[in-house]
């Protein structure tokens, strides 16, 4: 699949042993537990009369494993429901405001944070044991702070983060004797004509994150022109991350031919060679935008105490240390530790390299930017 199964393999193998047991148990549960029983979910595992609490999440979440671990840790019967990608999840939360589908949520990201806050979907809450350093990732939003009475409570609790960066196939550039690109501007250079794969920002939140970076870099007046130059330079726009990375990227392992793709800062950790000595790709750290994923308690939750316990669990050391392997993100808890390959081959961009915008500005501008792109390059 991806060219190398990596140093991460060792860590993975260890975990796999544990999780395969968990999965086997989960399978048994799924066999007996599903069907017409509407109100009791996986929680039958917890057994007894544990009070039920529901967490609504985006699609790439380890539902079953989490439900079991969180049930054990919190004493509640934790049920996990999926609600689509980050954008779909956020919109569903907004639509069901007042009569929430769940008690707590996880997976609202930087792009949609403003929408969730503006619509007052979440009940401000700060976990008692918020990891050191987590405050660095909180939403920079004055109104949320004032509603919550100073900075005592957070409407959105940061759980993990990553960075959207342009990735390149270093081998391709060496073989073709072309200098590696380094900046946004390089991608529009004729030297790199027809080599880039972008993500549709209207369909993918990774793509939207890249768009935010270009707005930050080129300004309200310049980003549309930049995208125009990109597409004029033969950039291909895919709908989703996997279509782009696996389908088009020359190091995606699926026969793609393009050596430049929008992906994550952590991606090079998954293209390490057999010996574990080098990665065949690298992230361009001057083209990164931070993406934080948030959790929170839903306003009107049937089980508010349970929701708080689940949010507590999401930022607990026990869960934080599983984040890199389960979700390919960095835990907000700096002490949780990262797989070796991440540190070596996939460093995070430094704070001053990031092209970030405040959540309010993103909420304010997102629709306008997307519609402008629709008009300029037909997205």
């Amino acid at each position, binding site marked *: *699949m*991806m*060219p*190398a*199964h990596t140093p991460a393999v060792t860590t*993975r193998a260890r975990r*796999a042993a544990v999780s*395969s047991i968990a*999965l086997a148990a989960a*399978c048994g549960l*799924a*066999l007996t537990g*599903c*069907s*017409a*029983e*509407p*109100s009791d*979910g996986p929680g039958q595992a917890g057994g007894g009369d544990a009070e039920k609490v*529901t967490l*609504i999440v985006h*699609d*790439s*979440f380890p539902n*079953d494993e989490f*439900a079991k671990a969180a049930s054990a840790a919190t004493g509640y019967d934790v049920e*996990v*429901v999926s*609600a*689509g990608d980050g*954008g*779909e999840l956020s919109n*569903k939360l*907004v*639509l*069901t405001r007042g*009569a929430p*589908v769940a008690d707590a949520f996880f997976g609202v990201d930087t792009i949609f944070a403003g*929408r969730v806050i503006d619509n007052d979907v979440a009940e401000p809450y700060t976990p008692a044991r918020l990891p050191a350093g987590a405050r660095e990732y909180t939403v920079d939003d004055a109104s949320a702070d004032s509603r919550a009475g100073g900075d005592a409570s957070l409407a959105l609790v940061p759980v993990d983060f990553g960075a959207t960066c342009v990735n390149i196939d270093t081998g391709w550039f060496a073989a073709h004797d072309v200098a590696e690109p380094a900046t946004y501007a390089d991608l529009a250079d004729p030297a790199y004509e027809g080599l880039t794969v972008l993500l549709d920002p*209207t*369909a993918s939140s990774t793509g939207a994150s890249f768009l935010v970076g270009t707005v930050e870099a080129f300004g309200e007046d310049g980003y549309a022109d930049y995208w125009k130059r990109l597409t004029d330079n033969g950039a291909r*726009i*895919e*709908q*989703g*991350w*996997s*279509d782009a990375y696996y*389908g*088009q990227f020359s190091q995606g392992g*699926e*026969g*793609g*031919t393009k050596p430049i793709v929008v992906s*994550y800062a952590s991606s090079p950790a*998954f293209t390490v060679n057999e010996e574990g000595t080098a990665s065949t790709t690298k992230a361009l750290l001057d083209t990164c935008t931070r993406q934080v994923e948030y959790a929170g308690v839903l306003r009107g939750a049937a089980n508010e105490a349970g929701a708080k316990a689940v949010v507590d669990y999401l930022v607990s050391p026990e869960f934080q240390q599983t984040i890199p392997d*389960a979700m*390919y993100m960095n835990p907000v808890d700096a002490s949780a530790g990262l797989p070796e390959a991440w540190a070596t081959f996939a460093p995070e961009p430094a704070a001053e390299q990031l092209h970030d915008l405040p959540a309010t500005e993103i909420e304010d501008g997102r629709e306008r930017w*997307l519609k402008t792109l629709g008009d300029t390059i*037909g997205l």
Partner: protein
Amino acid sequence: MTGEGRAARPSRGARSGTSAWGIAGWTLATAIPLAFLVVFFLWPVLSLIATGFADDGRLDLSGIPEVFGASRTWRVIGQTLAQAALASALSVLLGVPAAYVLYKLDFPGRGILQGILTVPFVLPTVVVGVAFSSLFGPGGPLASLGLDRSFAIIVLALVFPNVSVVARTVGGFWARLDGTSERAARVLGAGRIRAWCTVTLPALAPALASAAALVFLFCSTAFGIVLILGGREFSNVETEIYRLTVQFLDLRGAAVLSLAQFAIVGAVLVVSARLRRAGERAVELREEAERAKRPGRADIPALLLFAATVVLVHALPIASLVTRSLRGPEGSWTFEHYAALVKPPDGFPLDGPVTSAIWLSIRIAAAAACIAMVLGLLLSLVLSRRPRSPVLRRASGLFDAVVMLPLGVSAVTLGFGLLITMNKPLGIGFDLRTSVVLIPIAQALVALPLVTRTLLPVLRGIDERLRFAAASLGARPLAVLATVDLPMLGRSAGLALGFSFAASLGEFGATSFLVRPGAQTLPVAVSELVGHQAPGSYGAGLAAAVVLGVLTAAIMLAAERLRTDRMTREF
């Protein structure tokens, strides 16, 4: 025949079915499916659309001129119609020879081929998209054709599942068409083609109209295929509603586009009803298929066309998919993707081994197929009757259209609509929004039109005089049903069951927009695997897609065997 009860007299009531029981029965047969559609379809969809037209509790229609004033809207509508029209025409053109070869000719392996040809129809659109782009995209074996990201590839990918729809819908009907008239025409001196065009084609018209309308609806609301293969450039109304709802939460714009979608669907239904009515005379249908003949020299053109269709439209993309599911990182052959399904590595977006997803999908699809079959049977019986009262006849026509609507309404609209309406609906004590029960219901909504469209042409094709004759000979309404309608339904019921089961099994759109309570059906697992970042996840997704295809083929093959010979022998 039922020999019990008092000797039946040909009473007026029995004859026209207007006894008190008869009225109660027909009312119930109408009310049950109607209630289902109203509660689980019309209410959610209309609620969401209403939300788009409400501004602080007041009606706000300003979105209509605004959206229709935008050039993008018209471009999108134009794309939708062009894609759907071309794909439907092509599907019918290629589907009729396929129907002929698969249902009128007899050759070894025919049954298996019939089953296999259903697979394209039930493969999740995600997979179809991936298969086509792996074939025509950069690095693919046919990349040099330059079809990637073109109008042509979208049309081709839309034809991929729909040739099967036409072949099956038309073929099932054709097989039981009495060939006497065509033979008579030949005897009277008409050439093969002339006899076919003047006798068989008009007789096939209702089935053709049904199939074409169905295909047009599928194509005009295609989602995954258009999104993956076309990108934004070739947006249709469906992907535009998705964009507005899921990305922008612009319910106003989405509501206006939903109206446009209703208009398109409505127009298709009116046109197809017209066509059907034009061709709607009672054709001579046999309750069992006419014996298929061995292919002769005159069948060569049809055979060639069929072979070309199967190879170019179907086999190539599927082969490309299967090949890729068997390729390792360095291009070596491997089963590792399949092994990963049984024992998913850490970090895979699977809730367990894929076997549990299969088992879950089968149970949910079985429930959905049951719902769809029961409702579909009732509906078909009701809709096949031609009430004497013009009001009732009009109502029947309207009802007929409502049944088709789930095919013509965006899955996003339905999914989000269910979300805002199914919170303890109708005084039911629990929140249906997060219930597993909602999944088979949503799937049944999608399968219902298929069941109805499969059964209805058969029932409508029954000569009304047969029923009158039975009644006047003393059969009571139930006996008429049991001896006239049901035997005719026999073969098609197996087909309808297979269709509804397979369609539910492969259903992706509506299922994926629900809030899923730990219920990962196979198509959802495929799409999550294909879209996930974990190394090996994409390949495992392709492998899961192959598994889904094989499973579906097996079900359709089994459905083929569900021929109810026993039932018809009695007749």
